């Protein structure tokens, strides 16, 4: 017969998978009642069975998670992304707890860390006693903090009338304690003096009290005992993989030796430290498990709170700024040694920047998984047959970009399903396979990320769109528009081509929401469509939002940054044109006339135009435009800062950066400049 414990483990793993799936969905759609219920059920079941087969601690742990989801279900607790993150961590932790019926200090510590974190968000009446007791003064939840207290009483303690129990009792009154007690290395079995103290204790205390309150318990013994009180940051608690070694019980290399030798050796080890060989074995198994995790060929990953990454990026940003100013100084000083150092520092800070970037990058595939489900469910609801193909799941995007991209993508998929793909009958009549195909792909394109959503549906109908837009007053009645101008009209606010509002894409938001979301990400969106064949949306996104390589240019005293990845080349232009008043005109570039824009005119900057101007040719999407400035200064790494409210709506600018000399440079929004240039071009 199978051991019930094994049955439970297998069953619990299934529930854990269910929980994880639910959480991943909830992260994107926090109100999904079905998934909340699924998560609750998973925790409830694990809790119940765990108690039956002797996993008491696991039962206790999952009990709190069950409570949490209960509160989420009642609407008492909002499932924030941060909370989701913690619950995911809790799910991973449950996996670890499944290994042993009685977890060691390390795992218990992690349990308490997670529970303390969850308790922070729980409504007061749901929280267990220690936390509830702290809410007498203010309704604000008092932070539960974890401490590791290392106690080595003096060898003469017992003879001096100093017992350890009073101290332990006092610590227990401060909060919830987990104590580990073992012999220190002064204990020698053959030479044991019962009146000497050989004990070494380690207490993990989770309390709302501060360090002073803890230290107070040791007030009479602090001169003779070695007592260390260390605050453990929640994030750190997860990295305490070597607690056993830290306890001084065994040395790292001994652990490995022991594990590879006979069980008898484990008993010998117990003679040197721990109370019982079972405990040693258990602790060693735990340790080995942790080590295996770290050492296996698959890389171990850690979860880091977003704000820490943001802080890192900020620091790197500052470094990059400082670097830029040092570069300028080095250049102007003419000091070779200084220039050399600046160059070296440049290399290092660029490397650091790249790594910091890379840390924030996540494969887009994590969002893809969710779409597959969405397409499946929606197509069933709509009575359509649709296959979702995905490509480039490994393409990496900045986490922030990725998070903000999820909603627009969902909406576009809905749109393609609803308006693009025909029902099977229509498709058969049109001579197409009954099963429609929507393809979602991500790839790198000219230093940016290209995301394409392609369907093989009926395509956009320009006439219908134009009629609708005219009806809605989005375009003048007599306007003559090219097809490529008509398609983008579907992104206009309040536009909807569907004759009747379906409950799929007609959920109160239109494609204008998609447009503004992509704009917010400094991306661009283009439409290609062929009637009867299908539609393709192309979204171009910057890989990150925080730092860009830029080309610094100047007009009079004012400096601007042009995103470098869009710069094609810089040319000198001598003013001979006959449009002195217009801030745009056409210039000749590689045998082509392209629109150009003079920044001095665009931003009404003072000063006289130099006789020889510089024009930066940039490529926006598929078209080139020229930006004419006084001077091209050079490459400049830029940390993008949001503009204050005053400038937020200033057209043509997407942000600002602080320069090494303390001045400010505007970062040009080439997309909007291109639109301006094109318009002026047409008007002329």
């Amino acid at each position, binding site marked *: 017969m199978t051991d019930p414990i094994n049955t439970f483990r297998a069953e619990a793993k299934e529930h854990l998978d269910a929980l994880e799936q639910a959480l991943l969905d909830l992260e994107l759609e926090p109100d999904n009642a079905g998934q909340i219920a699924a998560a609750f059920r998973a925790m409830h079941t694990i809790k119940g069975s765990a108690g039956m087969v002797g996993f008491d601690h696991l039962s206790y742990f999952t009990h709190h998670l069950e409570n949490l989801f209960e509160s989420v279900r009642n609407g008492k607790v909002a499932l924030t992304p941060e909370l989701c993150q913690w619950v995911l961590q809790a799910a991973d932790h449950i996996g670890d707890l499944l290994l042993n019926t009685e977890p060691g200090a390390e795992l218990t510590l992690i349990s308490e860390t997670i529970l303390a974190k969850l308790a922070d968000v729980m409504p007061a009446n749901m929280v267990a006693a220690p936390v509830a007791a702290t809410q007498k003064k203010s309704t604000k939840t008092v932070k539960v903090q974890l401490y590791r207290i290392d106690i080595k009483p003096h060898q003469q303690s017992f*003879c001096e*009338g*100093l*017992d350890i129990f*009073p101290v332990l009792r006092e610590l227990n009154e401060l909060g919830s304690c987990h104590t580990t007690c073992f012999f220190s290395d002064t204990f020698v079995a053959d030479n044991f003096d019962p*009146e000497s103290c050989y004990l070494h204790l380690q207490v993990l205390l989770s309390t709302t009290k501060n360090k002073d309150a803890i230290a107070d318990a040791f*007030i*009479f*013994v602090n001169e*003779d005992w070695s007592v260390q009180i260390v605050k453990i940051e929640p994030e750190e608690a997860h990295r305490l993989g070597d607690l056993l070694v830290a306890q001084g019980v065994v040395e790292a290399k001994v652990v490995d030796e022991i594990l590879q030798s006979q069980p008898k050796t484990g008993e010998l080890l117990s003679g040197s430290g721990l109370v019982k060989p079972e405990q040693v074995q258990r602790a060693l198994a735990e340790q080995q498990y942790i080590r295996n995790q770290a050492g296996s060929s698959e890389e171990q990953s850690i979860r880091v709170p977003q704000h820490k990454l943001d802080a890192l990026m900020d620091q790197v940003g500052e470094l990059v700024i400082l670097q830029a100013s040092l570069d300028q100084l080095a250049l102007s000083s003419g000091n070779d040694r200084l220039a050399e150092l600046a160059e070296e520092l440049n290399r290092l800070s660029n490397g650091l920047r790249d790594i910091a970037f890379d840390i924030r990058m996540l494969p887009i595939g994590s969002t893809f998984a969710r779409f597959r489900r969405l397409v499946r469910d929606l197509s069933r609801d709509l009575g359509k047959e649709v296959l979702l193909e995905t490509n480039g799941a490994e393409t990496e995007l900045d986490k922030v970009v990725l998070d903000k991209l999820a909603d627009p993508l969902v909406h576009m998929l809905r749109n393609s399903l609803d308006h693009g793909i025909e029902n099977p009958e229509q498709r058969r009549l049109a001579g197409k396979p009954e099963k429609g195909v929507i393809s979602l792909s991500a790839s790198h394109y000219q230093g940016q990320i290209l995301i394409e959503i392609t369907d093989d549906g009926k395509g956009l109908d320009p006439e219908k769109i134009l009629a609708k837009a005219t009806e809605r007053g989005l375009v003048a009645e007599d306007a003559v528009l090219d097809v490529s101008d008509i398609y983008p009209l579907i992104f206009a606010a309040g536009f909807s081509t569907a004759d009747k509002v379906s409950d799929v894409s007609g959920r109160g938001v239109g494609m204008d929401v998609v447009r503004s979301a992509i704009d917010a990400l400094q991306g661009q969106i283009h439409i290609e469509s062929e009637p009867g064949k299908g539609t393709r949306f192309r979204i171009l996104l910057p890989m990150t939002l925080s730092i860009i390589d830029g080309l610094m240019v100047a007009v009079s005293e004012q400096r601007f940054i042009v995103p470098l990845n869009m710069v094609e080349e810089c040319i000198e232009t001598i003013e001979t044109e006959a449009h002195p008043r217009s801030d745009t005109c056409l210039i000749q570039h590689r045998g082509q006339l392209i629109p150009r824009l003079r920044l001095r005119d665009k931003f009404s900057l003072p000063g006289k135009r130099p006789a020889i101007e510089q024009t930066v040719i940039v490529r926006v999407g598929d078209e080139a435009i020229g930006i004419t400035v006084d001077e091209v200064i050079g490459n400049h790494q830029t940390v993008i800062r949001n503009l204050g409210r005053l400038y937020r709506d200033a057209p043509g600018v997407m942000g600002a950066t602080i320069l090494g000399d303390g001045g400010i440079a505007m970062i040009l929004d080439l997309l909007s400049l291109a639109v301006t240039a094109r318009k002026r071009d047409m008007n002329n």
Partner: protein
Amino acid sequence: MSKTILVVDDSASVRQVVSLALKSAGHQVIEAVDGVDALKKLDDNKKVHLIVSDVNMPNMDGLSFVKAAKAKAEYRFTPVLMLTTESGEDKKAEGKAIGVKAWLVKPFKPELLLSAVTKLA
């Protein structure tokens, strides 16, 4: 947990305050007026968990008493809490030599006394 505590002080009021506080915390209290009296009380009672003693007392002072008490087999490991005044700093070094670790400076609030007692017994 209830403990038996010997309180030694020549001041009746101090004894009263200390006894009252200890009794309110559920402890049993034996009172003695000086060192000589205290040694006698120790012999009369086979089990005392904690000695709380003043330093300056007639007949036999606190430290001499503690020294004598610790010489008795039944009390060699019994914890001691000394009550002293601000000026008694030099006595601390003396007390340390005979194994007295815990000191409480008079005047003190009853809570402080109880907190000290819980740290010792």
